[in-house]
């Protein structure tokens, strides 16, 4: 079962710490969004494999935008 990884806030993607196909553990930091001078980390919602990454470093994203999927 795959699950979308969504942006909790609007901002700029300043780090992508994973690659498609990579195995991750729950709560591992996978993206960092910069907004309002602060860095918000996006953590893996569960143990799994990153199925897809839908943004690239430097992208501006809106709140609730899909950043990737985990399976």
């Amino acid at each position, binding site marked *: 079962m795959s699950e979308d990884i969504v942006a*909790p*806030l*609007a901002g700029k993607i300043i780090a992508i710490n994973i690659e498609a196909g990579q195995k*991750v*553990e*729950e*709560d*591992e*930091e996978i993206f960092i969004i*910069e*907004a*309002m*001078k*602060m*860095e*918000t*980390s996006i*953590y*893996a919602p569960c*143990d799994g494999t990153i199925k897809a990454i839908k943004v690239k470093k430097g992208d501006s994203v809106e*709140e609730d935008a899909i950043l990737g999927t985990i399976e």
Partner: protein
Amino acid sequence: MRPYFEQMNTFGTEIKKGAIKRTEENVEAFLDAESQIDAEVARVKNAGFSTEKINARGEMTVWQRIDYLVDEGSWTPLHTIYNPANNEEGTTNVIDGLGKISGKWAVIIGFDNKVMAGAWLPGQSDNILRVTDLAKRLNVPLIWLVNCSGAKLPEQEKFYANRRGAGTPFFRHAELEQMGIPVLAGIYGTNPAGGGYQSISPTVLFAHKNCNIAVGGAGIVSGMAPQGGFTTEMAEVLIEKAKENRAKPPGSVKTHYDETGFFRYVFEEEKGVLDGLKDYMKDMPAYNPKFFRVAEPKEPAFAQEDILRLLPIEQKKVYEFDEILARVVDGAEHLEFRAGYGPEIYTGLCKVDGFLVACIGNRQGYLGKDYPEYADYPGIGGKLYRQGLIKMNEFVTLCGRDRVPIIWFQDTSGIDVGDIAEKAELLGLGQSLIYSIQQTDIPMMLVVLRKGSAAAHYVLGGPQANRHNAFTIGTAATEIYVMHGETAAVATYARRLVKEKESGNDLQPIVDKMNELAKSYYDKSRPIFCAKNGLVDEIVKLTDIRKYMQAFVGSAYQNPKSICPQHQMILPRIIKG
């Protein structure tokens, strides 16, 4: 009220494997930063003569005296690297902190007899005033370990006189005594002039057999009226007189035990003095803790080491404040006040060692698209908005009514700014919080987890609330400044940049100045700078935050001047609804 407090709501979650993996670097960075603080503390401990040299004279060092005096594991040092005058000795030459003696909390302070035989140094009187303020705020005994050779004469102009100068602590001692707060003094060594008043101003004097206290010491007694200079003949006379006085200094035990009776007790051994203090402390006024406890003490539900993973040392990284709080209170239990309202701020009742304590802290991260409700821009934790300020005003006021001590946790970039924020009354609400704090008359403690900045540093129980703030601790991630250095550089040079641009001049010199200012802000906001200059009272390890909370709460409930019966408290009822 047992149903309210015995088992409160639990909060906090176990750290998961993924989080452990991603926070390894943070743990390393924190431990490295804490080791730098340790090095500064070691430098102060090793100042002056070696322990071996002092022991060879038959004396204990101040550190050994404190170690022998306090109950094991209770020493909670403060102001260890405080040195605001940047003395070459690297210390203000007094060592102080909270500690338990014979089971009771006391503020303890002693002269470092390894450094110039415990001389007065610049910055020392301000250190002592922080300590007398602490005893006054917590209403606990002040214990002195006097061993003071008097003023460091070549630098007397820096501390002898002035409003908060070296004589001020004697007035503070009198003030404490008038308030019913005992000041006990164990006295060692030679204590002339200033040292004499350090010895005589406490309430009960415990003397070592070799000590002496006097208005003037051998040096002054040997002197003569100023005659416009010195000659070798005069020097010969001085030598003879100095030898006589050295052999028989003024104010010895023979004078002040046998004749004046100033010394209540005299002890043969150094440890005997400390045993005397320990024995006296058994009789100092203190409630049995059960009088105030709302539940049996519980250990924290999570490891203190977790905090090394939960608090990012990188200032821009957001984190869950509630997870940190859950680590430092009894059993990860709390009763949150107005959850959901003013989401940038946590307010709630927790327990420390079974005592009720109010906690207030900045939450971090995005606050949702509809907050703050008065603005069309998003809110971010660390900043203060209208609801958070109103909530804190209410909570602090109710804590005052219910006589619950408050522990503040700061990591703030300031209060929301701009005309929209002005219309939302934030300026007035910030000062209202100061008013609310001032009217409570309850002790408070502050932990600056990371950032203390702008007016928010004041209103969130900062040390400026010095009738209420007993002490402030920082961490290896603490930084305190009016604003970020780069913001300050923009504020200082923005207009100048415009002017230079319009004149067609090279901008690089101004840019260089901006970078210099930003660097200066960085250097002057580091944890060691903050502790050295008194912006915090101690930098502590993350795993020791709870230990300081225990010392604060235990002291605050030892002998409070005002009581709210548990069954008459209103805050828990308001929380329950």
